[in-house]
């Protein structure tokens, strides 16, 4: 801050507040819609303040789904469980396999090391959407449709985390390994007792990014799951909005939307420091 003009100071705040309002507004409306009756929504305009139906609507969304005659009936508690399993599976899986392979790449010399590195490196670039049809066939042939394994494993095949851990391991001073080796420490002991503990911050940062990535998956679960019991909350919401002239039961839909947003938002806000670090360093 170079100049200190009163008017500029307030204009800065005003500009930021407008930005914050733009960001918050759709979510606020969603929240309001999740606390009113269907009638309050279908005769617009929607009120600007929350109504009295909070508990009713959320209980409906969680345990019963939309009432009869309003699109698909999907109680979302099961779907939130599925989303959580998928998100945590992807997160933990990616972190484990990339810690292991980054350790191998940095601390060992082995035949075809460079080739292996490039093979993994290439997977950095292609999102699952590009190879969606053949990946679907692979998973179908392995009999993994409608299974957690099928939801999780194809999305673990990416190198972002490996790349990140590799870069971090590179910055660890060589003296660490020398000292460990002099004390007769085996490679795996070095990995578990030294490398993993000093990677804690990086693991936390990746955890936030990957959890959001996993929770928010849409296309893959959409294709993978035909069994209603295997649906995830993010993909199930689409089936609650009927196309054509039918009405959706909006209070339930909006309560579901809120429930789909809350877990990843809590993770971002409660682990903000790690989130910022993870985002700036991994970009994906």
């Amino acid at each position, binding site marked *: 801050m170079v*100049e200190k003009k009163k008017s*500029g100071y307030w204009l800065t705040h005003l*500009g930021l507040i407008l*930005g*914050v309002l*733009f*960001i*918050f507004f*759709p*979510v606020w*409306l*969603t929240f309001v*819609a999740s606390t009113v009756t269907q009638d309050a929504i279908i005769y*617009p305009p*929607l009120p600007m303040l929350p109504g009295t139906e909070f508990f009713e609507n959320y209980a409906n969304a969680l345990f019963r789904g939309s009432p009869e005659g309003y699109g698909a009936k999907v109680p979302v508690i099961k779907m939130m469980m599925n989303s959580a399993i998928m998100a945590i599976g992807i997160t933990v899986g990616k972190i484990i*396999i990339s810690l*292991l*392979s980054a350790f191998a*790449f940095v601390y*060992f*010399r*082995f*035949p075809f090391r460079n080739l*292996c590195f490039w093979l*993994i490196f290439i*997977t950095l670039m*292609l*999102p699952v*959407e*590009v190879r*969606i*049809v*053949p*990946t*679907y066939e*692979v998973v179908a042939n392995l009999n993994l449709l409608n299974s957690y394994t099928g939801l999780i*494993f194809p999305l*673990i*095949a990416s*190198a972002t985390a490996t790349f990140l851990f590799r870069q971090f391991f590179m910055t660890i001073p*060589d003296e660490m*390994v*020398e000292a460990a*080796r002099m004390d007769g420490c085996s*490679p*795996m002991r070095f990995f578990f007792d030294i490398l993993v503990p000093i990677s804690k911050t990086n693991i936390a940062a990746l955890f936030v990014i990957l959890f959001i990535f996993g929770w*928010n998956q*849409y296309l893959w679960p959409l*294709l993978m799951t035909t069994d209603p019991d295997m649906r995830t909350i*993010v*993909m199930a919401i689409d089936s609650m*909005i009927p196309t054509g002239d039918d009405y959706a039961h909006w209070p339930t839909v909006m309560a579901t*939307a809120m429930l*789909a*947003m809350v877990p990843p*938002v809590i*993770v971002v806000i409660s682990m903000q420091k790690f989130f*910022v670090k993870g*985002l*700036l360093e991994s970009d994906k």
Partner: protein
Amino acid sequence: MEKRVFFKGWWLPALLVAPQLLISFVFFFYPSGQAIWNSLFLPDPFGLKTEYVGLDNFRFLLSDPYYLASFKTTVIFSTAVSVSSMALGLYLAALADRLIKGAGVYQTLLIWPYAIAPAIAGVLWLFMFNGNIGLASYYLKALGYEWNHTLKGDQAMFLVILASSWGRISYNFLFFLAGLQAIPKSIIEAAAIDGASFWKRFGTIVIPLLSPITFFLLVVNIVYAFFDTFGVIHTITSGGPEQSTTILVYKVFSDGFVSQDLGSSAAQSVILLVLVGILTVIQFKYIERKVHY
């Protein structure tokens, strides 16, 4: 860069990279190879046998007006999403950077939409612009403007751009803020002492110093608009009306899974593969440059 000190042995590291290599082969290399292979074949309408057709799938695609239209849609869509979310992100970051106190609070208030799935963002905006009950369409109607994105292509396009950019502002904000805070204050102060106004300083010092990060963000945002926005489009428009919001990745999905046109869908996958490859190479060229700074 290589470590000077390392452990001996080769079977242990082989074991350590095995899980990742295995997963990459099963779910990445094999399907990608399969996509390339399928793109050279044409299944007969009953799916009983396939016929080798060489590059005919590609030739057909590149003369298919729907595919070319989808290309154009993708370019318009991804440019609009990238530019608008970057402009807003930069604007908010520049404001937050001016504050000594409170920048952190605004950061918290601005970054959480990153956690919202594109599909959910789509539902939120669909609700606001729903032709019968949406608040936005209600007030637009009151102002005499007829809103119906299920019939009007340009309105549908506007809505998917809005919903996709909205969730992306936080990402750009965070990167721009980090970039701005990395600029040494002494340079700005020196310019201020020499009498350069805020806008002059912004144009001649800040923008050039931000250009590497801007370029990086541009590539990342284009990749986002190409792929991650699938959820937005699927929930709001399903590619319609009349394919006006069918971006390339949506067409791979609708041709491959809805119309079961596998040869064409595979050829489209290959084209996308090449496009992402190019974008990634550009991005890594940038990362190399950043290392040399």
